[in-house]
Every structure is written in structure tokens, then in C-alpha cells.
């Protein structure tokens, strides 16, 4: 598993995965599970080996490009009454403050980019 990157990160170990499978999907509880080094920052993904899968980067992307365009156009057409606003640059976790500093840096004309840990 990758190293923990947030404080208060929940336990996503194999023991937790096994317990969840036992409780929710006991027919799969004995299947091999594999931790996937995904890009999730507040979640973890484990593959339950019942079939094969491939990484997105190894797939032909032509059909996916049209699918994504259609999906994005569909999402954009949905009316939202009330609810929360989603602003550009709004990110969860420690990336949020970094992006704010980055925005200020890009607004200035010079200087070095902000560092992630300051």
C-alpha cells in the first residue's frame, strides 16, 4: 500500500477489506484481493480477483473520448437548484491551500512556485 498522505486517514487495510467482504459479499470473501495503486487520496481501491481488468492508460481511447464528451455535455445540461457551489480550484485536503497559494503566485508576475509543505 502507498504511504499515508493525510492525517486521520481511515484504515483501508486488507483486514478491513476482508471484514467488509465477509459482511456484505460472503460469496467473495475467499477470493484473492489485491491493493491497487490508484490516485485516490481519501479512498482505496482493492481488486477482487474474479475477472481480469486493465489500466485505463493501456486502452484504446477513441470510443472513450466520444463517451466522455457525451457524458460531460449531459452533466452540464443538468439544472441544479440550490445546493452547494463548485468553484474552480476547490480541492479537498491539503491540496486546497496549496492551490490558493498557486493562484496568488500565478497572479503575480515573478517569483518561485509555492512549495507543497509550506
Amino acid at each position, binding site marked *: 500500500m502507498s504511504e499515508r498522505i493525510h492525517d486521520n486517514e481511515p484504515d483501508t487495510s486488507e483486514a478491513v477489506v476482508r471484514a467488509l467482504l465477509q459482511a456484505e459479499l460472503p460469496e467473495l470473501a475467499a477470493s484473492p484481493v489485491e491493493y491497487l495503486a490508484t490516485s485516490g487520496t481519501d479512498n482505496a481501491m482493492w481488486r477482487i480477483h474474479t475477472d481480469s481488468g486493465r489500466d*485505463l492508460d493501456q486502452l484504446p*481511447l477513441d470510443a472513450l473520448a466520444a463517451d466522455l464528451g457525451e457524458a460531460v455535455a449531459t452533466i452540464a445540461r443538468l439544472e441544479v437548484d440550490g445546493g452547494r457551489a463548485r468553484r474552480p480550484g476547490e480541492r479537498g485536503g491539503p491540496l486546497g491551500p496549496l492551490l490558493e497559494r498557486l*493562484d496568488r503566485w*500565478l497572479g503575480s508576475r515573478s517569483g518561485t512556485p509555492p512549495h507543497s509543505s509550506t
Partner: protein
Amino acid sequence: MARLSEWNAPALIDVAEVRRLVAEAREVVDEPVVEGLVHGDLIPGNLLVDQGRLTSIIDWGGAGRGDVAQDLAPAWAVLTAAERPAFCEAVAASGAAWIRGRTFELEHAVGGVLYYVPKNHALGDVMARTLHRILTSS
């Protein structure tokens, strides 16, 4: 594309090129922003694909109402220059919206590279690839 291990902090981003694209975005004439539902994080890890086709979009926890140009991110976060025209045609965004979307994703990618690459997190590679695609797309 360089692997994570080949990146070193002082050379993580091409500052001059990033500044050039941001300056270019400022030149774009303002137009009314189209608002609608925004997912806000359409990166590879949030897209489920089966047999090369999109089947699900996950991680809606940050969704809300906003500038729909934010969801043009897959143009650079997922696709390469070869497939981008098909995406562009399907979303039918205006020129200004396209530039706004590119700038949003540029800032996201720069921040992501600065944050995740030094941590050797998988997202560092995703963000570095996205940044590379944006910087070589114009």
C-alpha cells in the same frame, strides 16, 4: 513521459510555459459563464471503463453548481491530442469555455505535481501527464 523517479523538484514544472498559458487565458474575451452541475474531478481514477467504453463516473462528493467548463478536464487529464477532437466535438464548448477549462486543469495539474510528485504518490504521475499534455497542446 518521464517516470516519477526521473522528476526532481526544481524541474517539476516549466514555469515560463505555465505563465504563458495563464497570460493567454487572461486575454480571452469574457462571455457569460454557463452554469450547471459540475462533477469537478473528472480524472482517470474517477472513471470506470469496460471494453474501452465509459460505464460509470464515481466520486460525486465534491459536485455542485458552477462553471461547467470545469468538467472539460478529461480533454487533458485522460485523453491525448489524438482523441481530443472527438471529445471537443461532443461537448461543443465555446472557445472561451475551452480556454477556461484548460486553465482550470492547468492550475490543478501544477498544484498536483507540486504536491504529489515529491510524495511519490500515484496521482503525481497522473498530474505530470496532464500537465505535459496541456503544455504541448498549443
